């Protein structure tokens, strides 16, 4: 089903969504555009190319409380905080970001153990994807096409959003999506012409130019395993790396986290929060032994995890080519060219 609304009435749409429950959407501040929990209908914007950080925080917040406890005489009881997650909407996710959810599902819901926190939010959250309109040029750091992601792919979204002249087209993809659109009675029906436009846009999105090389996932996986032991290669690639966590924190598919107890006075929470395989002490064992003491080993782990191990374990590349890691890397390390070099070694 296809609905539409004038761009001028975007605010109404937001109002309606806010009325239904929590809403995450892109908001512009003095530093750029990022996903935020919306308070006022005026906050969100659709005038952006890509958010600085990935929207993963809606499902996998940077910091999430798991258990609350109070240190008491005798037994210290802990109670799980699986706070009632309300049906939530995330609006304005670019196709590559939407794709990342499926990749994360494999990990958080796979391996025979489901992560209740991720599962709960996935179950209750409606994704409104946001296609890249034909006039918008991809950023030089992007390479989603290499990952075979179209600039206007709608798969993975519940509702797919696309700009058309003065209008916003909303396509219901999943049942949940269609249900949502159904509730938004003030939306107008999309016309045949809109349909055609949409189809064309999606097709056009497929061969939208970003940086590209012909990536065969399985071949890359094997190649990287072969290159793994080539320390000189990795040392050269990593010589600029400062081993910070920027690339992993802005990455939509990085999932590593740490768990810690935070106690003040005698009240505390057990909390999980983003961690990064790039950190020196990520693998440091209590004994003092560290299997990855050197920077190149950590960079190698990160690259191979995405372009080899993940493929071997889950069958997909753990990267969507959003270019965030490259754009925000303090020393301009570029995963795209790095992998290209490795694969063509």
């Amino acid at each position, binding site marked *: 089903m296809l609905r539409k609304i004038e761009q001028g009435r975007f605010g109404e749409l937001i109002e309606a969504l806010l009325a239904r429950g929590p809403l995450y959407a892109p908001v512009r501040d003095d530093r750029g555009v990022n996903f935020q929990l919306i308070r006022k209908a005026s906050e969100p914007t659709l005038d952006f190319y890509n958010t600085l950080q990935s929207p993963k925080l809606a499902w996998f917040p940077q910091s999430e409380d798991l258990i609350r406890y109070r240190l008491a005489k005798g037994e210290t009881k802990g109670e799980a905080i699986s706070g009632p997650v309300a049906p939530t909407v995330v609006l304005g996710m670019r196709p590559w970001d939407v794709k990342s959810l499926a990749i994360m599902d494999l990990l958080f819901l796979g*391996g025979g153990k489901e992560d209740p926190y991720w599962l709960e939010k996935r179950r209750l959250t409606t994704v409104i994807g946001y296609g890249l309109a034909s006039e918008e040029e991809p950023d030089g750091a992007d390479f989603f096409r290499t990952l075979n992601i179209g600039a206007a792919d709608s798969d993975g979204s519940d509702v797919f959003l696309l700009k058309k002249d003065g209008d916003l087209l909303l396509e219901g993809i999943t049942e949940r999506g269609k249900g949502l659109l159904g509730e938004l009675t003030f939306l107008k029906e999309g016309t045949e012409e809109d349909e055609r436009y949409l189809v064309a846009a999606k097709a056009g999105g497929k061969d939208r130019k970003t940086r590209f090389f012909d990536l065969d996932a399985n071949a890359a996986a094997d190649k990287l395993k072969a290159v793994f032991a080539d320390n000189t290669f990795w040392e050269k690639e990593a010589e600029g790396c400062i081993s910070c966590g920027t690339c992993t924190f802005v990455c939509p598919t990085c999932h590593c986290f740490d768990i810690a107890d935070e106690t003040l006075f005698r009240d505390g929470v057990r909390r999980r929060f983003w961690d990064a395989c790039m950190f020196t002490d990520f693998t440091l064992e209590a004994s003092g032994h560290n299997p990855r003491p050197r920077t190149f080993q950590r960079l190698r782990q990160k690259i191979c995890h995405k372009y080899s191990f993940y493929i071997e374990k889950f069958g997909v590349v753990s990267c969507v080519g959003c270019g965030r890691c490259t754009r925000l890397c303090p020393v301009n390390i570029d995963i795209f060219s790095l992998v290209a070099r490795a694969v063509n070694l």
Partner: protein
Amino acid sequence: MQNPYLPMPVRVIKVTTEVDTGEIKTFRLAFVNKEDEERFDYLPGQFAELSIYGKGESPIGIASSPTQKGYIEFTVQRAGTVVPGQVTSALHDLEEGAIIGIRGPLGHPWPLEFLEGKNIVVVGGGFAFTTLRSLVNYMIYEENRRRFGKISIIYGARLPGLLCYKDELALWGKRDDLDLCVTVDKGNEAWEGREGFVPAICKDVAPCAENAVAVICGPPIMIKYTLPVFFNLNFSKENILTSLEMRMKCGIGKCGRCNVGSKYICNDGPVFSLAELDALPRDF
């Protein structure tokens, strides 16, 4: 669905100091809630996260055998040299009656089906003997004993005072359905047993590779010198098993900390055959 991050309460019912440095203790834990006990259905080789609120969690191999009913045991070494580890030292301060938390069982057990009908050579060094102890107690349990062939155990420590489970070793020594060989790098006047490094002992015990599996756990240096011995005895890499130590947090293959190659040690391990390890990038 049961929240895998929420520890189940257990009561400390017995604390045994294993070594005379006091740095290794065994904790006998009993579940506070019956249903938790039933849910905690484990096999030798698995581990669990012991949790102390305010300090955190620590992944520890299960030292008891499921054949021992009513309790589970964990042998814990106080971590850290100059600055003691938060959790392990908190555990060491525990007294009987204290209540802590446990998450698990986690990871894969020793592949018992694979071991069935085979001769088992158990090789352990120092503190790393814990899950091997579990395995042995499991195998020599009367209902299980016949499922396995010949059982030979080689266990070593640096000094007599650093051997764990001394009483149990004594009992095993009396049994005729297993060969026990306990050794120390350096004995003392009181010591009557063997002297010598584990690899050397393995050499002259020379277990036969015929239909046999070697299960080896110990400090890296011991492993390093023991493996060649077994290769020379024609043990295939498929028939040598070990258990990996890796920094783990979540224990259910999500947090990524223990990722090596395509494996998440906590979830896909910690038990591996050498053949499987060879397939992994050398990054552990």
